[in-house]
């Protein structure tokens, strides 16, 4: 684990394939076994969608009567061409292949959100899905799939499972639509919301706070409401904690218990955020870890404050505006704000071309 930390740098270069693949496996299993399939099973158990309806949809999808797929891969590829050109993979860079898997996992996660059922139509209780996923009773837990073998084999397995999981989700979603539980409009609306959120929202908030001191005050006092001024949907956010960096305080965010994260503002959490090496060491030796893992040297006179998100508050760091950006527009400033700087493991810097 230590070895891995040293290999991770603050830039976006992938240094440790093994760690990426391990994270992918864990993430894929989480989304399949905790989020997607329990949701499907919940619908079957409650008879919102009888099992035969799912099979009927699946059978129709095998023929050309099903129309074009609802979820299209963001890289524009289809599973078929990949299958036919398997030998080409050997010539691809490992990094490219892993990145592609990561993009497809993102597609899967987004598609799960798109297919969430409209609570207006079905009396849908989140707790029920959690029951189904074994959150309270291990009896219901779906068995985890084993991953192993060489890196090659693990990548091939991930590729296969992503394809299969998407197929299940596509069938389920199509079946929901056929049975009037989900409409195309709802999916289109959610898709538009998704494209509009993520890290960009956080960057817009930070940039606005840099140029507008009144907004900054409102943001720190009541972040959730201040976000609305920028038309940002809060998502599942209950209360936003804004930790402002100053000349004497540097803030960092972690969730030692799981990976609570201000998704509405910072998109999906980076893989290291969910990794035990980050979660465990940041509360034991924040200064050492920031230097070792992210190359961030916090000056001795600056106090580090680590925010451990244990409750319904989601913390975001408001970094300091970099020197030399006087007169910049809000849009230009937003370009400087990275996810890392909003978690507090790096600072916004002016990139010199």
């Amino acid at each position: 684990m230590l070895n891995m930390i040293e290999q991770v740098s603050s830039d976006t270069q992938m240094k440790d394939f093994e760690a990426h693949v391990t994270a992918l496996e864990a993430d894929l299993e989480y989304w399949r076994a905790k989020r997607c399939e329990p949701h499907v099973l919940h619908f079957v158990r409650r008879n919102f969608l009888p099992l035969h309806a799912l099979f009927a949809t699946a059978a129709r999808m095998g023929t050309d009567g099903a129309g074009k797929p609802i979820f299209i891969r963001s890289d524009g590829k289809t599973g078929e061409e990949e299958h036919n050109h398997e030998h080409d993979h050997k010539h691809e860079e490992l990094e490219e292949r892993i990145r592609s898997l990561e993009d497809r996992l993102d597609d899967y996660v987004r598609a799960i959100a798109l297919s969430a059922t409209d609570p207006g139509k079905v009396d849908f209780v989140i707790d029920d899905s959690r029951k189904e996923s074994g959150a309270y009773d291990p009896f219901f837990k779906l068995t985890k799939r084993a991953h192993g073998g060489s890196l090659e084999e693990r990548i091939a397995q991930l590729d296969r499972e992503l394809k299969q999981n998407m197929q299940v989700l596509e069938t389920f979603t199509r079946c929901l639509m056929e049975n009037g539980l989900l409409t195309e409009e709802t999916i289109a609306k959610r898709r538009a919301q998704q494209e509009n959120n993520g890290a960009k929202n956080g960057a817009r908030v930070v940039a606005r706070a840099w140029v507008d001191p009144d907004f900054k005050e409102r943001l720190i006092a009541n972040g959730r409401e201040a976000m609305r001024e920028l038309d940002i949907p809060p998502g599942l956010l209950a209360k936003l904690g804004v930790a402002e960096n100053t000349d004497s305080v540097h803030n960092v965010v972690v969730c030692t218990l799981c990976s609570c994260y201000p998704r509405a503002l910072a998109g999906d959490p980076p893989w290291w955020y969910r990794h035990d090496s980050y979660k465990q060491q940041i509360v034991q030796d924040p200064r050492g870890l920031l230097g070792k893992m992210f190359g961030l040297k916090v000056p001795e006179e600056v106090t580090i404050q680590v925010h451990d998100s244990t409750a319904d508050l989601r913390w975001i760091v408001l970094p300091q505006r970099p020197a030399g950006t006087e007169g910049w527009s809000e849009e230009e400033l937003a370009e400087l704000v990275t996810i890392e700087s909003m978690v507090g493991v790096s600072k916004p810097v002016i990139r010199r071309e």
Partner: protein
Amino acid sequence: MSSEPKNTPWSGPGARKEGLEHRFKAGERVRVRMSSTGANPRTPTYLLGKTGMIAELHGATYAPHDHRGVYPYLYTVAFDVSEISGKASKDKILVDLTEEWLEPV
């Protein structure tokens, strides 16, 4: 703590509007209980028995998303890193904890 303790009542979904009568005040020293049966399970074990200072008062919320009921008042409590790691450090850990886990020092 370089930042002043704050009292910022919850205003998100499910905010409880009536009086915020927190048991502890901002700036007060508190200890995390070793156990708290039936309490919000989201108190990390590395904090059990540790002493910190109330930094912020948040009020209470009704079952947002994955909760099963109303939890008691929530606080942000500031701990010294040295209290947790046992090594000299000026840095702080700020953790959001519910009232039932805290006792006066």
